[in-house]
């Protein structure tokens, strides 16, 4: 087996196709998780004990079961009940459901850390409780937790690799197929690792820029 760095440049285009799918899965997953987490955190902090309890149970359930099992459950389950979801949609759903719960916990930490005085000031200005929350507290909370969100985003990017098991032709999937065709497994997995490192580095860098922009002085 010889070291063939020229080979890396030759297989990169094939892997790049998988990269496109990975990105196409990761970006909606990140955005939708951030969105889905909002009703979840509202549910977690709801006044009704029942709503809070149910939401907390949902969060506990997805936090303590493997992502793989969740993907399989949704993918195979959808087929059996007659509304088959594509692997992409099933994986996206699983990613959003699990990471939405984690992000909701991050939001909750942020919200609870926003000074009580901010909320009181909002109420003193005559805003309703709901408006105070939406206009005063929540935006500050979200800006505070950007670093934690960045971490979660990286986890989402890494979890897209699991979508290969439900037939999504992303990076890891393409790499495996390529490895089966050739004997150059080292070069392939080396390039694969490099792609993921680059992806996460770009994402982390972008989040750092965002963090600096929205940081509360």
């Amino acid at each position, binding site marked *: 087996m010889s070291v063939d760095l020229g080979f890396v440049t030759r297989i990169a285009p094939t892997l790049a196709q998988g990269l496109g799918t990975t990105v196409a899965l990761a970006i909606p997953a990140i955005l939708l998780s951030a969105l889905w987490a909002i009703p979840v955190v509202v549910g977690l902090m709801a006044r009704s004990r029942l709503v809070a309890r149910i939401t907390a149970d949902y969060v506990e359930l997805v936090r303590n079961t*493997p992502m793989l*099992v969740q993907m399989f*459950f949704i993918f195979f*389950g959808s087929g*059996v009940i007659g509304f088959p979801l594509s692997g992409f949609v099933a994986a996206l759903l699983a990613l959003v459901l699990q990471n939405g719960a984690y992000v909701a916990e991050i939001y909750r930490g942020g919200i609870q850390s926003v000074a009580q005085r901010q909320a009181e000031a909002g109420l003193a200005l005559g805003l309703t409780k709901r408006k105070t929350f939406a206009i005063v507290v929540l935006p500050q909370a979200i800006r505070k937790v950007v670093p934690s969100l960045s971490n979660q985003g990286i986890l989402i990017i890494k979890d897209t*690799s699991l979508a290969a098991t439900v037939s999504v032709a992303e990076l890891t999937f393409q790499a*495996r197929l390529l490895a089966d065709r050739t004997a150059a*497994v080292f070069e392939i997995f080396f390039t694969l690792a490099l792609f993921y490192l680059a992806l996460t580095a770009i994402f982390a860098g972008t989040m750092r820029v965002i963090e600096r922009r929205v940081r509360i002085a």
Partner: protein
Amino acid sequence: MHLLLASAPLLARGAAITVYLSVLAIVLATTLGLILALAQLYGGIVLRILVEVYLYVVRGVPLLVLLFAMYYALPYAGIALDPLAGGIAVISLYFAAFMTEVFRGAVLSVPAGQWDAGRAIGLTTPRILTDIVFRQALRVAAPPFVNTCVMVVKGTSLVSIIGLADLTYVGKAIVERTLAPFEIFGAVALAYLALCLVLSRLGRQLETRLNYVH
């Protein structure tokens, strides 16, 4: 329901593998994490750079990719690990990075005053560490440590992709045969839930015992 009863022995065997993997991986990851955290805090510049790079790589590369590299690529270098040993090795190495962060953060969170006080009564750095700082750091480390242990349990499910008959693999095989994803994967999910909740419960007991000091 009848299906669940019939599948129970197979699922139990899978669960046994999962528990075995989890326990070993937690022990190994914790040990390695402790060593690397100490290296990062008190080692020379070369050691610190190596650890830093290792942490960076593990943070950015998915566990699945590392497992594949071990299973498909390493044999070509002459190192042939079976999915069980190789799985434990890779999972331990991966989560050792998380453990390193947990322990390092915990030690760094102990107030500087504790160190000063220790030096004031004439203790050397290692003695300060073991006698004063360690206990306090442990208290801070306990919650994220338990979280990481839960992550390890969830991470073991990935060995199913390289063909090891753990709980996830067995569940998937049964579902493919019987087409009953809700019952079987539901049972699998509940089993993982039970495992992780037991772990969290143990972790909370650990926290209370550590907090007992004060």
